[in-house]
C-alpha cells in the first residue's frame, strides 16, 4: 500500500513541479499553487475512474448485457460527458462559477465566529476512527443528495434540466455524468454548501465524490445485477437504479419517481420511495420533446435543454395566453 501511495505522490509531484508550477510562476499566480496542486490530483483521480469504467465496468456490460442489439451510437455522447467531467474540465468551470458563493458563505460564517461542526466534537471517540468518520459524512452527504435529487424531479424548471440525464434510451456505465452543466452547477453548489456546514474537509469531499461517483457509474450499468437481498438494501446497484430510469407506461406513470438514492438505498426505504420488484423495463422518458435528446451531440443537448429550462420558467398561464 505504501508503494502505491509513493507512486501516486511521485506522479502528482512530477506533473505539478514539471508542468503546472512553472506556468503559475511565469504567470504570477503563485498564490494559487496549493489549489492547483489539489487540482492535479483531481484530474489524476479522474483518469483512474475512466480506466475503471472503460476496462472494468464495461467488461461486465459486454459479457452480461441486459439490453442487446440497441444502438451503441446513442452511448457515445455519454462518453464525452464522462471524459469532460472526470478530467476536471466541467468541474473547473463549476468551481469558478460557485467559488464566490461558497467563499462568501464561509467567510461570513467564520467571520461571525461560526466554525463548521465536526462529528468528532459530538463523539470524541471518532477522533481515532477515520474510516467511521468518513462513512458518517458520506451518509450525510448522500442524505442531502437524495433530497436534492427529489427536488430535481419535483420542481418543473429543475426537471427540465435533469430530464437530459433521464432521456438516455441506451443507459450504460457512461450515463452517470450525462447532465446539463447548469444542473451540475446547482447540485454541486447545494451539496458543497451543505458539506461546508457539516464540516466536511476538502480531502473528505474529494473522497466522497470519488467513491460516490464510481458507485453511481456502476449503478447505471447495462446489466441485470444486484448485491443480493441484503446488499441491495445497503448499496445502490444497477438493478435498483434502473427502476429510477424506467420508461413510464400507462400502468406506471411515475415509475421514475422512485429509487432516488445515489449510494445508500436506506433513504428510499425510510421515505417510502423504494421499489424492489425485479422487473426489467426499458429506460428513457415518455415525452417526445425530451426523447429527442437521443441522437444529439453534447453542444446541441446543452443548448436544447437550456431552452427547455427557460421555457419551464415561464408560468403556464402566460404560455396559454
Amino acid at each position, binding site marked *: 500500500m*505504501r508503494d502505491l*501511495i*509513493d507512486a501516486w*505522490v*511521485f506522479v*502528482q*509531484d512530477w506533473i*505539478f*513541479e514539471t508542468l503546472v*508550477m*512553472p506556468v503559475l*510562476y511565469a504567470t*504570477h499566480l*503563485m*498564490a494559487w*499553487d*496549493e489549489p492547483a*496542486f*489539489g487540482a492535479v490530483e483531481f484530474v489524476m483521480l479522474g483518469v483512474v475512474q475512466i480506466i475503471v469504467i472503460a476496462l472494468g465496468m464495461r467488461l461486465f456490460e459486454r459479457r452480461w448485457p441486459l439490453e442487446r442489439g440497441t444502438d451503441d451510437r446513442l452511448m457515445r455522447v455519454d462518453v464525452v460527458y464522462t471524459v469532460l467531467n472526470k478530467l476536471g474540465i466541467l468541474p473547473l468551470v463549476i468551481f469558478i462559477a460557485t467559488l464566490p458563493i461558497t467563499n462568501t458563505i*464561509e*467567510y461570513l460564517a*467564520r*467571520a461571525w*465566529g461560526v*466554525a*463548521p461542526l*465536526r462529528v*468528532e466534537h459530538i463523539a470524541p471517540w471518532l*477522533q*481515532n476512527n*477515520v474510516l467511521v468518520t468518513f462513512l458518517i459524512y458520506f451518509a450525510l452527504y448522500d442524505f442531502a443528495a437524495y433530497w436534492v435529487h427529489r427536488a430535481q424531479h419535483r420542481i418543473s424548471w429543475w426537471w427540465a434540466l435533469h430530464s437530459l440525464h433521464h432521456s438516455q434510451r441506451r443507459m450504460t456505465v457512461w450515463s452517470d455524468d450525462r447532465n446539463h452543466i447548469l444542473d451540475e452547477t446547482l447540485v454541486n453548489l447545494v451539496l458543497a454548501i451543505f458539506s461546508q456546514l457539516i*464540516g466536511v*474537509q*476538502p*480531502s473528505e469531499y474529494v473522497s466522497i465524490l470519488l467513491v460516490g461517483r464510481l458507485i453511481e457509474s456502476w449503478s447505471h450499468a447495462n446489466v441485470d445485477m444486484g448485491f443480493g437481498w441484503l446488499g441491495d438494501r445497503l448499496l445502490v446497484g444497477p438493478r435498483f437504479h434502473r427502476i429510477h430510469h424506467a420508461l413510464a407506461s400507462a400502468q406506471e406513470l411515475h415509475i421514475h419517481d422512485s429509487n432516488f438514492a445515489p449510494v445508500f438505498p436506506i433513504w428510499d426505504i425510510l421515505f417510502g420511495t423504494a421499489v424492489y420488484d425485479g422487473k426489467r423495463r426499458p429506460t428513457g422518458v415518455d415525452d417526445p420533446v425530451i426523447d429527442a435528446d437521443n441522437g444529439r451531440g453534447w453542444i446541441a443537448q446543452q443548448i436544447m435543454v437550456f431552452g427547455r429550462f427557460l421555457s419551464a420558467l415561464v408560468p403556464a398561464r402566460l404560455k396559454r395566453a
Partner: protein
Amino acid sequence: MNKFTVLAAALGLVVSANARAEGIIVLNSEEASYSIIDAATRMEVQRLPIGREPHHLIPTPDGKELLIASTGTNELLVLDVRTGERRGMVRNIVDPYQLGYSPDGKWFVTAAYRLDHVDIYKTDGFKLAGRVFLDGLPSHMSFDAGSKTVFVTLQQSGRLAAFDLATQMLKWNTFVGEAPAGIVTLPDKRLLVALTGEDSIVVVDPVNGEVGGRLRTGKGAHNFWPKGDGRHFFLSNRVEGTVSLIDTQEMTVVANIRVPGGPDDMDITADGKELWVTQRFMRRIAIVDLATLKMVGHVPVGKSPHGVFMLKGTQPTAAVPSPLQSVSATVEPK
C-alpha cells in the same frame, strides 16, 4: 523495517513520555491531522486528528506549551511542549493561519489567510484587542525587537504592512514584490522578506517599508528558519526545490541544498545537527545534514505537510501565563 520494529517503536513512545522529548510534530494540512515522528528511528509513530486544515504552530513564550492552529475550525490545540500530550483547546480564534508572539510575550497575533484580516490579542487574558482587514492573503509575520510593531506579508497583493501593536493602527503598507511570504527581523532591525512569486529575498526598512536591497536565492523563495547564530538563515525555495543558507551580514548565499517537492517550513534538531524540512508536494519531511549540507533522508507523513516542530523543550523567552490558565472563557479542556 518490519512490523515488530514499528510496534516496538510506537510502544516505546507511549510507555516513555519523556522519549517524546526527541519527537517531531508535523502538521498534515490537507489531512486534518498531525504526525509524531520518533527522531531516533525516524519513523512516524502516531498520526492524530485535529480540526481542519492545520498549517502552523508555535510554542508559548514560557516554553511549556505548543499551539497548533486549526484554521477551518477557528481553534488552537494546546499540547505539552515536551511530551506532546493534549492539554486543551482555545476556541474562537478566527481563521488562525499564521501565529506569532511578540518578543515580550504581551501580544499574540494571528494572520487569517483566507479571511483577509490580522487579529491582535493581548496575551494577558487572551482578548482580541483589534482586527484589521487587509487585501489580500496575509500570510507570515515578524515583530520588531521592542515589541512595538508587527510586520505582515500579503501574499496576493505583494505588499508588506506594519501595525502598531498598542493601537492596532496601520503604520505603513508598501509593495515589496511578487507573493511575499516568509519574513524575519534581523538583529540590526532590517527586515528580510521572501518573494515566492520571484527568485529573491528583499531587504526592507522597518521604519517606512522601503525596499533597500535584493538577493537572488532560488525560484519561489518562501520561508526562513534561523540557524541559531543570529547571522545565518535557511530559506526554502519552493519552485526551485532548494533550501538556501544565507549569510545576512554579507548578504550572500553560502550554499544551496537540493530539497525537492515544494520545501516549506523548517526546524533544527535539539543537537543542532539536522535541519528538517516539510516537502509539501511529496507528503514527507526531508532531513538535511548540517555538517555536509546535503539531504540525507526523509520520513513519509500525511498529505501536504506544512508546520514542523521539535519536541525538545524550548527555552522560555518571557514569563507569560499559559493561554489555558489565562482564558477560562474561550478555553475548553480536552
